[in-house]
């Protein structure tokens, strides 16, 4: 093979690779490559075949399903509900703890709260009330002891911190913001 032939062969390979990548399009070829194409029937044939092949593949893609977006978004609903439930679990737990705490220290009348609950079993609710009452007595005693030893301002501050903390948890759950594991700016 003479030197010129080897060069043409290399050029053909390079140009045909480019033609393959660009679906037979000539816009990515520079001046020398375009000139090569003018004199090389093999490369011109590849360019035409690549164009036709691209067209053929475009035809082979099945038509879009018009309702797919709707179906996917509908399928996201259960996922969203599950996520919200999970997000609200800490809120529900916090509310429960706050409520039981309030009942125990006497801030909310326990019998009044129990009166609002459905009556599924009198004995069940009585057992629950007794449990709360026992724990309530212990915690109320502790709270009274704390109020005699701690500064009322400190106690009031602790109460405010608790309220704002709870509010923070509720707002975070309401916002339900998904945090990317890979982004630093969140």
């Amino acid at each position, binding site marked *: 093979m003479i030197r010129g032939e080897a060069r043409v062969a290399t050029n053909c390979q390079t140009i045909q690779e480019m033609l393959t990548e660009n679906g037979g399009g000539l816009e990515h070829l520079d001046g020398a490559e375009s000139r090569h194409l003018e004199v090389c029937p093999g490369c011109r044939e590849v360019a035409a*075949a690549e164009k036709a092949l691209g067209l*053929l593949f475009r035809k082979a893609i099945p038509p879009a399903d018009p309702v*797919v977006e709707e179906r996917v978004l509908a399928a996201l609903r259960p996922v969203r509900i599950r996520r919200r439930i999970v997000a609200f679990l800490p809120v529900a737990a916090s509310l429960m703890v706050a409520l039981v705490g309030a009942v125990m220290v006497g801030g909310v009348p326990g019998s009044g709260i129990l009166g609002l609950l459905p009556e599924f079993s009198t004995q069940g609710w009585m057992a629950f009330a007794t449990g709360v009452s026992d724990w309530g007595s212990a915690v109320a005693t502790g709270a009274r002891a704390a109020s005699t030893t701690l500064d009322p301002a400190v106690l009031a501050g602790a109460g405010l911190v608790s309220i704002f903390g709870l509010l923070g948890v509720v707002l975070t759950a309401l916002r339900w913001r*998904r945090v*990317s594991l890979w*982004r630093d700016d969140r």
Partner: protein
Amino acid sequence: MAVTEKTRQLSDERLVELSLDGDEGAFGVLVRRYERRLTAFLSQLVGDIELARELSQEAFVRAWSALERFNPKYRFSTWLFRIAHNLGIDQLRRRRLLTTPLYRTDSEGGEVEVVVPDLDKDPLGHLENRVLASELREVIDGLRPEYRELVLLRHFGGLSYQEIADFTKMPLGTVKNKLFRAHSVLRKALTDFL
């Protein structure tokens, strides 16, 4: 939620950010942007257009569920196609366990698997030219597996060479070379239709 024209023109990365903030409309734009290509890719992978549509839907739901794990350093398209590809491969494995292949003996005495096409499920069933559909199916199925995957990603998935390189974790030069070889085979086999 109404999706504005401006939202439709946003980049994949921005749409992912909006989706992370709970904007389902933004995710809907991503669905519309990729649904056709994803279904086309999957239909060639599993050989069943209806199944491909189901898998495509499942891929989007999985992508949504795992969106916070998506690393924006990579392309969304590559990540989505990876999810879909895994679903397709799982489906093929499951089907292989549930079905028994049929074989016939060819002229040289070797066993050839008989593929019984179901036109309702044929991924190329929409092509009016049945001879072309059959020929194209045969040529794609006959490609070497490493070429076949690249051809599916390129022409049915519509991925760029760089995206294919990211997807397959191959150097870009290797992708170019393999696709060039695959195209040489395709051009030769489909001469009558080009």
